[in-house]
């Protein structure tokens, strides 16, 4: 049942659409055909233009009412037909020229007539130039009107000649000489040095790549060691203070920043406090002396800025704080911690110095490698020049 309904609906739709589709179209009049033929001619579609003109002639021949004054037959069509005939004549000549040129194109044997690739390409350039001049002479002899020459360039025949000059000649060349050129590279004693040089350059390149990989591996190890030392140094200069929580997506602060923050925190903590006992004051002054040494070490290692101002402000703050009476000025063992930290700092400094020296050696080695690569390039240029002179 649904199928039957669908068939009925389809039939009704066809009946509704059929009158629209069957509406008589306005037949082409001579002017339509004339415009169409001119447009086709202007686009270089000569065969289509011939067909349209033929249709136009048939229309006005069978129904002369369409051309009351013989305007199309007697005045408009003749010059159009003459132009079309000239272009058809030239395209026929160009077609003959393309076929003949391809048939006569016989690249010379490379082993017999050619000694170098340059001679071979010169021969190809000469042939292409000769064929182009011949093609242009054919066009110039047949067409005087620049507009007709422009139309000709849009025809298939002219495009075929362009393919001949741009592709076909070189393709014929490669078909007949491709294997010979390979054999030339392998067997010509003059070009044998080129092959030797290529092999040497390849070996040099592989060696340079291997050295580069090794240097990258060493640099990665150095970086890991440096980070470990810096972490240890950080523990020392901040007295083991916990690292501040960094913002997500931003790198963790370095030693200089942590040291600066550490000094600021100490200053703020002292500013909030009241009086000090004498032993605390002594310990703080000793710590400030350590901070001065840390600052010098960090400056020498170029790991941070000069924090002398902060340290001196901290020292002034400690000096200005009141000291509670009745407390011994020094506590036993009060200098034990600074001594151990100083030892750790000295150790870290020595380690940093060693790392810096090792890094310097590797950088110099890397630079030497770069100079070596540049030398290869210059040698390549020189060799190619020499080989070309030899060729």
């Amino acid at each position, binding site marked *: 049942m649904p199928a039957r309904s669908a068939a009925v609906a389809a039939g009704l739709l066809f009946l509704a659409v059929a009158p629209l589709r069957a*509406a008589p179209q306005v037949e082409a009049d001579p002017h339509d055909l004339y415009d169409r033929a001119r447009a086709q001619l202007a686009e270089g579609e000569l065969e289509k233009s011939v067909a349209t003109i033929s249709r136009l002639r048939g229309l006005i021949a069978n129904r002369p009412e369409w051309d009351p*004054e013989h305007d199309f037959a007697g005045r408009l069509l003749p010059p159009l037909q003459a132009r079309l005939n000239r272009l058809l004549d030239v395209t026929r000549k160009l077609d003959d020229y393309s076929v003949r040129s391809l048939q006569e194109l016989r690249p010379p044997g490379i082993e017999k007539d050619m000694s170098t690739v340059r001679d071979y390409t010169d021969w190809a350039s000469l042939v292409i130039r000769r064929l182009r001049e011949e093609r242009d002479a054919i066009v110039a002899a047949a067409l005087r009107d620049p507009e007709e020459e422009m139309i000709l360039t849009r025809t298939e025949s002219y495009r075929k000649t362009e393919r001949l000059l741009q592709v076909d000649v070189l393709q014929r060349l490669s078909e007949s000489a491709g294997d010979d050129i390979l054999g030339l590279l392998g067997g010509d004693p003059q070009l044998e040095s080129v092959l030797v040089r290529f092999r040497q350059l390849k070996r040099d390149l592989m060696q340079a790549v291997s050295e580069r990989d090794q240097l990258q591996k060493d640099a990665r190890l150095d970086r890991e060691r440096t980070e470990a030392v810096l972490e240890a140094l950080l523990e020392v200069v901040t007295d083991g203070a916990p690292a501040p929580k960094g913002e997500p997506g931003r790198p963790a602060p370095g030693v200089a920043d942590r040291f600066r923050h550490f000094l600021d925190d100490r200053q703020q903590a002292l500013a909030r406090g009241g009086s000090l006992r004498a032993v605390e004051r002594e310990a703080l002054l000793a710590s400030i002396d350590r901070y001065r040494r840390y600052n010098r070490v960090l400056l020498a290692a170029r790991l941070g800025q000069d924090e002398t101002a902060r340290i001196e402000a901290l020292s002034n703050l400690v000096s200005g704080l009141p000291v509670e009476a009745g407390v011994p000025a020094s506590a036993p063992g009060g200098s034990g911690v600074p001594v151990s930290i100083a030892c750790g700092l000295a150790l870290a400094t020595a380690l940093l110095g060693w790392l810096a020296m090792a890094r310097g050696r590797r950088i110099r080695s890397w630079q030497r490698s770069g100079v070596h690569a540049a030398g290869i390039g210059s040698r390549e240029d020189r060799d190619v020049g020499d080989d070309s002179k030899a060729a």
Partner: protein
Amino acid sequence: MVERSFVPLVMLLLSTAGLSGCATSATPGPATLTFEQHSLRIPFTVDADGSVSLAEHPPLVGRLDLSSILKAEGVRPGTASGLSVQMMLHYGRLYVASNAFHSVWEITPHPGTTSASYRPVLLLRAADVAPVKDLRLSRYGSAHASCLRVDRAGSPPVFINSSGEAQDACP
């Protein structure tokens, strides 16, 4: 005798005078020559001000103000820019048509002036009917009695003769 001998002379004089009188009394008409003014179909585009530039298709030059025709066609001012019209010169009159028009218009120039009279010469469709399709003006007929042929999709051709009258056939 003498009087008789003068009779032929008097008759000759009278006849000569009569002939010459007839010759001088007839009013000479303006000299004429054959002049057929036709053109092929020329497409034009209406400018924003409702006019078309004839220089769009040299060697014609000048302007034709279609504002009045556009107004009569119900085209709102300022909306006719880019409208395609086709024109054809037929026996000295200009005919203008467009798919968007309701009529084919005839424009009769007034020689020596910059004005022309105009009138709808053929109704293409009623006011509430969809625009015509594939409207086309052509020249059709015999050498000295051609017509302006008006074709449009779905309708038989209509012919406008040299007097500007629409007919079903071209004589």
